């Protein structure tokens, strides 16, 4: 069985001259040309940028120079990360045609490493959704079965990697938007500790929850990417940078490590997913880990707390779209106020408008104390509860999503039913903790099942090592190649 492309493997091919970076890039671009019509993973292809960078990499190789870890590796960026001179839309009609005049810090970092940007990936509009179907470009499909969604909101990023139309993608995770699509597409999705990766240039949804991270085909790749992008950035007032490098600490023995299991995470989870995770628990026990049972009753409030806080922040963050400085502007209006209202109603999709309305409601006079203030207090309780849990264990193990990938047209149903699917992913964002979703099996339709390892604040290296040990133990049994995309 062939596996998806991996960073070190490709880096070796380039350095040994088995393939030139231009040849490799063309292979990816050709595959995208062919397969993206079906998968809809990309909403913009950046062929010129990609080939220009690839040529630079080939020149470096011809001089016998050593490549940086991400140099020459073809990759994708979610369309909410600002790319100077390259259209960035957040998959919203309100930002169609918007061309940023500066780069997001993450893009600046990897661009300086000569990362080969193949294109910008599809996402739920303003990252508000769990299926990628609120995108104004239509949803991204799951390469494992195109009758199913790739997940969301970073669905395009996951689809691009699972379909091998990119070696890795950068996504963003506000309530599970990296981990959930990674779980649906059988990939590794890593949401770092809040503050570890700069948010500068990431188009804001909910600033106290948003975090950029990698979607990759193995744990080692996620660690390599994290090491490259996690750095202190004075342009992001909440930036802290990383405390440790992770890729070189992936071989640590986990004998004696305490893995916490909270029963609250398993309520309402499909039986086959529970069984897959129980199998993973056995693997960890064989590796010498100690399983401890922990209580986390506060997470039953995590979902409403998340939606109140996220929507409140969104209503404020999205106030900037007024049609004056950038983005769409309505054609017919009577005065400025009418112009702003019409611009926003015509430019934003239904789900975005619904979340702005909810956010406005919970912040409005008479409701602020009952909703926003109360949610903030509960957020404090959830942070404290996780802190206590990590006094008795090193990492937590939980499902990533209660189900496997949804069938198409999922979001057209009841909004609450859609929100409920985020139940396992949002607590981590509320507490600002790191979590990585890794594949742990398949359902009876052959769709991937994911589980997540959650760590204490800034212990990103600990969870990546635990994830790597599991992956190493079960080898390739948890990964499945699709018939799509580039074969190297």
């Amino acid at each position: 069985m062939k596996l998806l492309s991996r960073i070190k493997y490709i880096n070796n091919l380039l350095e040994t001259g088995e393939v030139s970076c231009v040849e490799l890039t063309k292979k990816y671009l050709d595959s995208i040309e062919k397969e993206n019509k079906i998968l809809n993973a990309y909403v913009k292809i950046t062929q010129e940028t990609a080939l220009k960078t690839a040529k630079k990499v080939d020149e470096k190789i011809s001089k016998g120079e050593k490549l940086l870890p991400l140099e020459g590796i073809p990759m994708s960026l979610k369309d909410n990360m600002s790319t100077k001179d390259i259209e960035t839309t957040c998959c919203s009609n309100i930002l169609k045609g918007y061309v940023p005049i500066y780069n997001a810090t993450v893009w600046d970092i990897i661009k300086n490493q000569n990362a080969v940007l193949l294109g910008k990936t599809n996402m739920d509009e303003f990252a508000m959704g769990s299926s990628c179907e609120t995108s104004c470009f239509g949803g991204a499909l799951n390469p494992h079965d195109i009758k199913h969604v790739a997940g969301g909101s970073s669905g395009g990023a996951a689809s691009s990697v699972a379909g091998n139309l990119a070696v890795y993608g950068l996504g963003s995770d506000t309530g599970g938007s990296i981990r959930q699509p990674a779980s649906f597409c059988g990939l590794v999705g890593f949401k770092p500790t809040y503050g570890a990766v700069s948010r500068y240039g990431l188009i804001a949804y909910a600033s106290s929850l948003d975090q950029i991270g990698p979607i990759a085909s193995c744990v080692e790749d996620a660690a390599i990417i994290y090491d490259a992008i996690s750095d202190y950035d004075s342009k992001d007032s909440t930036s802290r940078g990383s405390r440790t490098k992770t890729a070189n600490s992936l071989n640590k023995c986990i004998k004696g490590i305490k893995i916490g299991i909270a029963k609250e995470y398993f309520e309402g989870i499909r039986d086959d997913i529970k069984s897959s995770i129980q199998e993973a628990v056995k693997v960890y026990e064989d590796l010498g880990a100690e399983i401890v049972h922990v209580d986390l009753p506060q997470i039953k409030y995590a979902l409403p707390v998340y939606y109140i806080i996220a929507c409140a922040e969104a209503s404020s963050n999205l106030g900037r779209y007024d049609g004056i400085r950038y983005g769409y502007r309505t054609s017919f209006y009577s005065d400025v106020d009418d112009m702003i209202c019409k611009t926003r109603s015509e430019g934003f999709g239904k789900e975005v408008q619904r979340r702005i309305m909810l956010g406005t409601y919970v912040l409005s006079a008479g409701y602020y104390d009952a909703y926003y203030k109360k949610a903030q207090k509960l957020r404090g309780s959830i942070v404290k509860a996780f802190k206590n849990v990590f006094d008795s264990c090193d990492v937590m193990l939980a499902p990533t999503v209660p189900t496997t990938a949804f069938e198409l047209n999922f979001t057209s149903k009841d909004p609450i039913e859609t929100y409920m699917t985020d139940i396992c992913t949002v607590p981590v964002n509320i507490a600002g903790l790191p979590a990585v979703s890794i594949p742990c099996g398949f359902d009876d339709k052959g769709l991937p099942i994911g589980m997540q390892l959650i760590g204490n604040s800034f212990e990103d290296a600990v969870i990546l090592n635990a994830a790597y040990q599991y992956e190493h133990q079960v080898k390739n049994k948890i990964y499945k190649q699709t018939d799509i995309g580039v074969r190297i």
Partner: protein
Amino acid sequence: MITHEDILKIAKLAKLSVKETEIEQLTKDMSEIIKFADTINTAVEDKDEEFDDINNIVNAYHEDEVIKSFDKEEILKNSESVGNGCFVVKKHVNRR
């Protein structure tokens, strides 16, 4: 319970124009969502717990100095309507 009037009031605050035909469905959706949000009010409040910031970040001050900013032309290029180095909007202040 969310009413049609509530929806119109929130829409006005949020600067969204809601069509007559959408009010019914929006009221229904919002009522469901608020009912769901209301579940937090069943939680016993931890009186000591206040949330400020996850990583206990304090304000980061920098020197008050003029640094290189973006070029004005660059900033204006994403706007639908510009003139004389400014964003152009319809006149909205009337002389008394």
